[in-house]
């Protein structure tokens, strides 16, 4: 057990000791949760490491402390750790920490690190007990890009206004500006490494055109969200948009190719930057008694501009094949590093029903497309998921869930979890299932 985990366990123990009241003083509150899950897939490995053999690398822990230090001023901090296959490894991170000045109900400000308002559920995506399902719809709430969406370091304004005088309901708005960190070996890092890895390319003299993400920085992130609670009791409509100014620096995996590229005037690392990458999502949620229905659609569009000139490297064939005598032949290696566009989209619809005090059922249909045409020509173009969830509230503080997923396509699985993806896609299954179990403790 490393130091950070010992610290977390000690903090949780302290919080558990205090849990019966959850209030230290009049205005100081402590809360926390701990979750342990299990994932098993019939074929492809997805999210939680080696799920085809069953994986318990699926945990989340959090604790927070907050206080109203003045009438309109609130401060708080939450620490969070998780393990999801290769991600997280239970390293403690600062989840949120901000001061919240609520000048009026119509206008308030938060300064610090706050959860990103994106869609109906992004701010509590790590909190299992908040929902019926174990795995949220993986297209709209895409774990691969969690680092970009989890939180913002900056300033946020928010409030609630009544848009139709005399009618019930109201409009909750928020807008924010800041930046966010992308940890090395985090979800984005691994996703891009997996996406842009490649095998030796015969057309390029056997060199690997694969790249490895060296660094990534978010220069700025700006966005906003609107949620309208309509006069129709239980119905709310919402939309969010987030714009990024991001830079990624990649290096070639193959040192020979990297050397060649620099020898012909190319940079040592490939820089891709974008100022017009947008995540957007809009949807509706309707609560009718013990039923809750929701549907959301998300789009990620962006163009990454490259700093790399397109060149043709003419090299001695002996460098690539020692059987060819030096000076006998040359090989042309085109190095065209152009711009790259992403156009991902997804939508889902889900419903849940609270049967009684301790039992809830739910289901959703979710589909993700990795291409702008939204076609299913290849299993890599999409991932469709039909889920069935059950939730048991064992007590006020403890939940237990069981869930099944029936999945077609594999557009969201990563090559580092599925080595065969790189060499022989036929070994991947385009129709597969996933079983999930999870228990959570909340105080």
């Amino acid at each position, binding site marked *: 057990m490393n130091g950070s985990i010992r610290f977390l366990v000690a903090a949780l123990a302290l919080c558990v000791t205090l849990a019966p009241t*959850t*209030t230290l003083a009049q205005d100081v*509150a402590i*809360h926390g*949760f701990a979750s342990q899950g299990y994932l098993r897939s019939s074929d492809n490995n997805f999210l939680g490491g080696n799920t085809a053999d069953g994986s318990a690398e699926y945990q989340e822990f*959090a604790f*927070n402390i*907050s206080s*109203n230090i003045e*009438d309109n001023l609130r401060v*708080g901090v*939450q620490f969070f750790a998780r393990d999801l296959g290769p991600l997280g490894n239970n390293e403690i991170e600062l989840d*949120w920490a*901000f001061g*919240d000045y*609520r000048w009026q*109900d119509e206008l308030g400000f938060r300064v610090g690190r*706050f*959860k990103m308002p994106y869609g109906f559920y992004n*701010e*509590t995506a790590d*909190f299992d*007990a*908040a*929902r019926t399902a174990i795995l949220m719809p993986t297209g709209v709430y895409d774990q691969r890009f969690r680092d970009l969406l989890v939180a913002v370091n900056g300033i946020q304004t928010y409030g*609630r206004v009544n848009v139709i005088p005399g*009618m*019930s309901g*109201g409009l*909750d708005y928020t807008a924010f500006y800041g930046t966010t960190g992308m940890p090395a070996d985090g979800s984005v890092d691994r996703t891009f490494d997996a996406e842009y890895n490649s095998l030796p390319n015969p057309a390029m003299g056997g060199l690997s055109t694969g790249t490895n993400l060296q660094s990534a920085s978010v220069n700025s992130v700006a966005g906003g969200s609107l949620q309208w609670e309509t*006069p*129709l*009791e*239980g119905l709310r409509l919402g939309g969010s948009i987030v714009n990024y100014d991001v830079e990624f620096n990649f290096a070639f995996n193959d040192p020979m190719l990297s050397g060649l590229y620099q020898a012909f005037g190319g940079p040592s690392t490939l820089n891709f930057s974008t100022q017009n990458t947008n995540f957007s999502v809009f949807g509706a949620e309707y*609560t009718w*008694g*013990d039923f*809750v229905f929701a549907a959301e659609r998300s789009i990620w569009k962006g163009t990454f501009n490259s700093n790399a000139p397109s060149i043709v490297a003419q090299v001695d064939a002996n460098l690539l094949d020692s059987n060819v005598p030096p000076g006998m032949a040359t090989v042309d290696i085109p190095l065209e590093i152009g711009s790259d566009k992403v156009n991902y989209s997804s939508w889902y619809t889900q419903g849940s029903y*609270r049967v009684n*005090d301790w039992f*809830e059922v739910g289901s959703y249909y979710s589909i993700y497309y990795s291409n702008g045409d939204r076609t299913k020509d290849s299993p890599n173009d999409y991932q469709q998921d039909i889920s069935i969830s059950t939730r048991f*509230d064992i007590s006020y503080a403890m939940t237990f869930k069981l869930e099944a997923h029936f999945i077609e396509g594999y557009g969201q699985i990563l090559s580092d979890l599925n080595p065969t993806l790189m060499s022989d896609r036929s070994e991947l299954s385009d129709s597969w299932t996933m079983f999930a179990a999870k228990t959570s403790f*909340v105080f």
Partner: protein
Amino acid sequence: MKKITLFALALTVTVVTSLPAHAAKVIVNGVDAGSVNAEVVKNVFLGKATKIGDTKVSFAILASGPTHEAFLDDVVGKSPSQFLSYWRKLAFSGKGSMPEEFGSEDALVAFVKSTPGAIAYIGDGTATDGVTVVALD
């Protein structure tokens, strides 16, 4: 045009039929009773409003029971599990703290009585000495 009329009619019927029945009584201390209505009370208990009129308010809830269920259903528009989940989401996103809970209606009345700007709810049989009972029309 006919479709719009039908939609408007359906909306009106839904809004009217979803007006609260007020099985639980709302009690306040130091709050202008004339400014209290169902919509304001709902917003206070969902953390969307912190003032009634010009008064900063604080609210408290019962931990469980039929009065708690009736109030949430009639005024807030949520079941107890939905209400708990709603506040837990706020607590774990840093946007709010869990409401203060009391185990009995007498304790809730005592809290309101001793706290200027407090608002809560009780059932019919509980004594209301020292607090103002507000009718939600």
